[in-house]
């Protein structure tokens, strides 16, 4: 069943077409990877889908309901959570308070909120930093905080903007395991933008390739990475060599 349907979405900034007529569907419980060179429009597409930007044209449907142009907080309440590529912690708060706010925003009671938040924090492996101020955390911890805050909403669909970037390979593994668990154990649908091809190949059921704002192609990861246009535009000569 299609959970997220994006149809013919376009978004321009002062004449530049950042996203140009992009469409894709995501089935419930599946994982879609979005790849493409820098400036291909990946983050803009996320912003449009999550309601942070109004598309110039096109529509976004979540579970059959048109959510195009809805404000971000309504999109989040409808069950779609996101993370930011540039981390945005609530910097006056500890890690625990950051996640507690998200649990509360997800509509749960104040008495249980902190315990639930602590569980989420443990789950993403952030327990060591739980009581630390979120300001001044290392990148790896901030990335996990982004993830924890989004998970605290118990979303049906999760938009992840480069959650693995800035992590050393040893730090990536547990995050990927977590993402797989989310899908298999809780049926969470994932859409993720990522440059690390090993992760894209391993996690994705299908891959959407963006280039210059347009959807270059989409399909199962093995097929897409063999596509000569994709290799030319993004991957370079050998699939996997983009994983620097």
């Amino acid at each position, binding site marked *: 069943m299609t959970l997220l349907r994006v149809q013919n979405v376009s978004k321009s900034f002062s004449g530049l077409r950042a996203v140009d007529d992009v469409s894709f569907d995501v089935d419930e419980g599946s994982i879609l990877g979005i790849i493409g060179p820098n400036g291909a429009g990946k983050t803009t597409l996320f912003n449009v889908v999550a309601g942070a930007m109004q598309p110039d044209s096109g529509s976004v449907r979540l579970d059959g309901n048109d959510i195009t142009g809805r404000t971000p*907080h309504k999109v989040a309440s409808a069950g779609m959570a996101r993370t930011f590529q540039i981390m945005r912690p609530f910097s006056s708060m*500890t890690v625990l308070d950051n996640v507690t*706010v998200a649990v509360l*925003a997800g509509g749960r009671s104040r008495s249980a909120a902190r*315990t639930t938040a*602590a569980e989420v924090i*443990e789950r*993403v*492996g952030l327990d060591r930093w739980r009581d630390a101020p979120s300001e001044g955390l290392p990148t790896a911890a901030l990335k996990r905080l982004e993830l924890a805050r989004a998970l605290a909403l118990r979303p049906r669909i999760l938009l992840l903007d480069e959650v693995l970037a800035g992590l050393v390979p040893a730090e990536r593994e547990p995050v990927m395991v977590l993402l797989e668990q989310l899908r298999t*154990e809780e049926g969470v649908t994932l859409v993720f933008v990522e440059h690390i091809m090993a992760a894209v190949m391993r996690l994705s059921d299908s891959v959407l390739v963006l280039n210059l704002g347009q959807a270059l192609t989409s399909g199962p990861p093995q097929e897409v990475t063999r596509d000569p246009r994709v290799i030319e535009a993004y991957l370079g000569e050998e699939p996997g060599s983009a994983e620097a």
Partner: protein
Amino acid sequence: MSVTELPSTAAGRALPVEPWNRHLLAIGVLAVVLIPLPLLLPAAQGAVAVRVLIFAIMSIGWNIMSGFGGMFSFGHAAYFGLGAYTSAWLLVEHNISPWIGMAVGMVVAAVFGVVVGFLALRYRLKGAYFALATFAFAEMLRLYASSSNLVNRASGYHVPLLPDDTSWWFMQFEAGSPNYFWIALGLTVFGLVVSVLFLRSRVGRFSVAARDDEEAAASIGIPVMRCKLVTIALSAAITATAGSFFTQYYLFIDPDLAFGSSVSIQAILPAVIGGVATIWGPVIGAVVLGPLSDVTATLLREPPTFLSFLQGRVGLDIILYGILLILIVLLLPKGVYGALRDRWARR
């Protein structure tokens, strides 16, 4: 819940205790300790103590919106003045108790705050522009009050003196009565308790989150605009109580005393000096600032010989405010309370 392979070094640690009960306890202790104060102080100092509390209430209100909510208001005179004028108008024109006037004033100020806030936020004013908008609305009220027959134009209101001089219902007592101090203390405690409950509440936490990062707050489903408007309403209502009390205490209100820009500054300074976005900052700042104008007034009346050139001049207190503010901003950017708290935390 399942655990990732990362070793969780401290799984199952107790959650840190939240500070709210500690704050509430401290407020209670402070209130009890201060109750005998007006009986101990000489009358002149008693008046200073009441002024300190008025400063504190105004600034506790300002701190909710501008400290915790992050929306810098340069127009809290609007709310102070609406509190003052609403209760004065109801009392003088309709003989309604200032207590009821205070409650109505809180509502009027809150509604006005929500309207101003909505307009300013709707058009996405930020930082200095937001502050200027709040200032403009306060000035608008000042000009309106100075020119409207409805509220006696520039002459304002005198609180009619009661024949028998003392009544709780009409909030009027003989000059220097400790009752004034106790009422102001009660309002201060009220403001502090509201601040703590606000920070503990859902909407309070959402507002702090929105202050830290509006986009991230919206992305987790926080209705940012609604939270900000609630924050402004609370802030306005608290500051309005100071206005109503001010009128009853000084028995007089006019457009400049109510809506003048110096009133807005008086709401800002205690929090900035004591510590913005802290529960105790406004109170500490008020204790520092409140006596200052008396000290300078005394100094100007009878200056020591080496300062004899100051004899009879005015405005020294404003200069001292300015110098103090510059020093605090330079040396203690988090205010007195913020600096102390950091020092304790480091030990």
